[in-house]
């Protein structure tokens, strides 16, 4: 194959003989670079500028003009019977996004797991990666089905709005379609060639296919993100909505990259949580301890992926919100201080659920190893910190009170709980929760090891010092800049808080990896986790799913009564922000529908391994 021949050709031309290892390394490098180049070229598509000579076909209007955004009226909206068009599109779009997030995320961590399998030589990783991909394949078809349904419903129910969006984005939608062809082709080759390209040099070909698959998938995500961010913060158009820039100007609005980062990381966390639920279900249904042990290990790995991706997610979300504020203070305050403020209390409930579930799973998982007993005493302190922080996070600023209660209280804010309702308190809470979660994770990783490096005492002291300083810094910054200085400094101080948390995480990983060298490994009894603890693997994807739906509700609602913010007003019958109860009901419909789809996906994945015995044998 070319990847083998090319280095040999080069070595012949140079007169320099290559060893087998060098051939392997070079071919791996060549293939990976090719895949990366293709990914980069997809992402950095040259500016597709409009010009009057871009004509698709000769018609009465032979040139393309750039009209202002139309003003929509009743005739521009359609309805299917008495079904609200917004509700219909909401559920379909949400299901498409759930499935798309899943199918984009799974190949990301599957490729990494596959690579770990190659590096460690442990075939279990390869088998697990293959099993995760098997689950993803059925999901891919469903994603496409819902994507097609979404497109049809948008064109049917909002034809004028979609016509405008096509005018703005033009050929870019065909690029999106082309990327789907590429995604499908690479996906099928990647999955079905798994056993044909399993060992030796061929494995590197397979890994490169994985990299290529992820490059195409990520590009798909970025392309689609541009439509959503254009609706929130339009760019490349003038005040009337007429296109003034090229496609790159239109795509590269102020919220595009923040949303790209947030969705990329969130997808990984979400995908890990869903496959974790798969593993948890298989584990509880296991017929033998060996099977239970296998799926326990799989569930742990999936949970590890989900939590690892989840830890930086609040920061990505904060970056997105900061950019929203920078674009439009009004939009930012609408989201967090205005009509949608209560929504972020619900978000706090969900993220608290996620963090508590993740920690609960880790604590229960410590039963797998005898070495965990030495750390069990710390669990209660982490639990108290998490619960207190969670309670602070869910404390609202403005209370739900009757007029009589407001009069008795002397205002709508509680005198001493009220301060917990503003952002500085919540920043302290979330950072402490993340530090606590990382500590649980760090203790879990240490539980099956006896550290033998001579500087273990110093290393542990350093780690403790980093934790204490970071916690003190987080609390000090939040209290001082949140309550005793100009409100403007709140935002800046939160960056320093985030940095403190990240230093704990990064230094923890680095110090531990150094301290674990030569460590004595204690036996881990996979499968020896209580069934109660496994239920955390079901809590995680449910909380993630509902949280995704909630954030979609925020993203749409911050546009208030605009289809495209400041450009095209929403003049439909649904041009209002629905109340959170109605939104909650819609999100529940979407979540339960997704749950049923996921059960179908898991069932199909298992069906492939089922063989009916011959009746006569």
């Amino acid at each position: 194959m070319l990847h083998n021949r090319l280095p040999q050709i080069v070595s012949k031309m140079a007169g320099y003989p290559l060893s087998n290892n060098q051939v392997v390394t070079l071919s791996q490098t060549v293939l990976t670079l090719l895949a990366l180049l293709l990914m980069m070229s997809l992402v950095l598509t040259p500016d597709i500028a409009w010009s009057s000579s871009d004509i698709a076909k000769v018609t009465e209007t032979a040139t393309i003009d750039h009209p202002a955004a139309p003003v929509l009226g009743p005739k521009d909206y359609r309805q299917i019977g008495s079904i609200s068009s917004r509700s219909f599109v909401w559920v379909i779009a949400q299901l498409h996004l759930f499935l798309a997030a899943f199918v984009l995320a799974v190949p990301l961590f599957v490729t990494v797991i596959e690579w770990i399998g190659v590096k460690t030589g442990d075939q279990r990783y390869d088998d697990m990666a293959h099993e995760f991909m098997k689950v993803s394949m059925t999901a891919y078809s469903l994603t496409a089905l819902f994507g097609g349904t979404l497109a049809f419903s948008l064109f049917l129910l909002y034809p004028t709005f979609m016509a405008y969006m096509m005018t703005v984005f033009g050929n870019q939608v065909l690029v999106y379609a082309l990327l789907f062809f590429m995604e499908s082709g690479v996906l099928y080759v990647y999955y079905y060639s798994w056993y044909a390209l399993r060992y030796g040099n061929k494995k590197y070909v397979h890994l490169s296919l994985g990299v290529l698959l992820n490059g195409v998938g990520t590009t798909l995500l970025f392309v689609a993100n541009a439509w959503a961010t254009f609706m929130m913060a339009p760019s490349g158009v003038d005040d009337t909505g007429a296109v003034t820039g090229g496609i790159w100007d239109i795509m590269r609005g102020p919220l595009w990259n923040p949303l790209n980062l947030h969705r990329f990381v969130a997808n990984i966390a979400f995908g890990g949580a869903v496959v974790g639920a798969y593993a948890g279900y298989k584990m509880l249904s296991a017929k033998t301890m060996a099977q239970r042990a296998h799926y326990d290990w799989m569930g742990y790995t999936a949970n590890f992926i989900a939590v690892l991706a989840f830890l930086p997610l609040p920061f990505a979300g904060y970056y997105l919100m900061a950019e929203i504020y920078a674009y439009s203070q009004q939009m930012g305050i609408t989201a967090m201080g205005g009509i949608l403020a209560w929504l972020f209390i619900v978000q706090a409930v969900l993220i608290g659920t996620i963090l508590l579930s993740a920690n609960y799973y880790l604590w229960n998982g410590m039963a797998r190893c005898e070495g965990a007993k030495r750390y069990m005493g710390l669990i209660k302190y982490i639990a108290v910190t998490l619960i207190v922080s969670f309670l602070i996070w869910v404390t609202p600023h403005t209370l739900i009170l009757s007029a009589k209660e407001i009069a008795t209280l002397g205002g709508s804010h509680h005198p001493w709980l009220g301060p917990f309702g503003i952002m500085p308190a919540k920043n302290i809470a979330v950072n402490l929760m993340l530090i606590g979660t990382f500590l649980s994770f760090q203790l879990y990783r240490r539980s099956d090891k006896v550290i033998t490096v001579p500087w273990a005492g110093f290393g542990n002291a350093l780690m403790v010092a980093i934790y204490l300083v970071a916690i003190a810094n987080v609390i000090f910054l939040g209290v001082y800049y949140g309550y005793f200085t100009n409100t403007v400094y709140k935002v800046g101080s939160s960056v320093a808080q985030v940095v403190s948390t990240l230093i704990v995480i990064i230094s923890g990983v680095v110090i531990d990896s150094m301290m674990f060298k030569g460590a004595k490994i204690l036996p881990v009894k996979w499968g020896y986790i209580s069934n109660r603890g496994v239920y955390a693997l079901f809590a995680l994807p449910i909380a993630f799913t509902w949280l995704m739906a909630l954030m979609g509700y925020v993203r749409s609602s911050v546009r208030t009564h605009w289809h495209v913010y400041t450009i095209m007003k929403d003049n439909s019958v649904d041009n209002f922000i629905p109340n959170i109860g109605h939104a909650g009901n819609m999100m529940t419909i979407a979540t339960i529908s997704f749950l049923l789809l996921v059960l179908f996906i898991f069932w199909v994945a298992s069906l492939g391994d089922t063989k009916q015995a011959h009746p006569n044998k």
Partner: protein
Amino acid sequence: MIADESRFMTQEQGGIPVFLKVLSFMVLMVLVFTGIANLLPQVEGQAPKEVKVDLGTLTMDAYIAMGETLFKGKGTCTLCHNNLGRAPDILALNMMDTAAERLKDPNYKGDAKDSENYFHESMIAPSKYIVPGFGKAGDPSPMPKINKAPIGLSDIEMGAIIAFLQAKDGAQPTVPLPTETPAIAETTHVAEPPKPAANAEEVLTKNGCTACHAVLDSVASIGPSLKAIGARATREEIRTSIINPSAVIVEGFAPIMPANFADKMMVKELEMVVDFLAKSTSEVAPESSIDTEKKGEK
């Protein structure tokens, strides 16, 4: 199976199937979240509604009331101007006194001389003066321009708010009552008259002629080639073919040429193209009209 392991193999012990247990757990969680969402204050965010006002019968009291409604509604002023510290708490301040103080501030670099103009300037050009203690040094004001989208208040609406701000603390409004709808040009974008193309090449490109006809660098063959059109058609025939393409259909070609070039092209543009094509008597392109213009300039 080791006795220790039997406590994990609950599936073998019978009872509720795992599938039902897991499904019930997940549905229950979802219902808890739904319940929380339904227990919170239920507020809908309504879009501003158009209200017809009879300017002929409008009194100053009604105008002030309209201003208060706009201040708390469509203007979204209370989103930031409240007691949470994001912006000056207008409702708590005596705005007439406050305006007077700010106009005296040496840092004030705006053009207003009185409270009415100060309030108006604050709405349409909020970065002219940022009240100390708010915003970030060096950055423009975080306040949006009230007369632009997404708020987009009209002059009458801004006047109403000014009247409210002046009257709320007992002062007499100085804003005149509106008696007629202002000219549309104040709020509607009026496009400047288009400029004609600079040369024939630009006209041909702009109107998409190269998509169907072989002309300039194009080799399209949907329509007849224009490269030697001057040798086979007169100026009048060329002009007619552009503005009334169905008058003569060249054999072998479909009658699909757009008939609206007379509306789209300016007279000057049409004459430039007719001149250019009339000079095109061989397959070699005529001297570029760009070069001709530059020579003319010399």
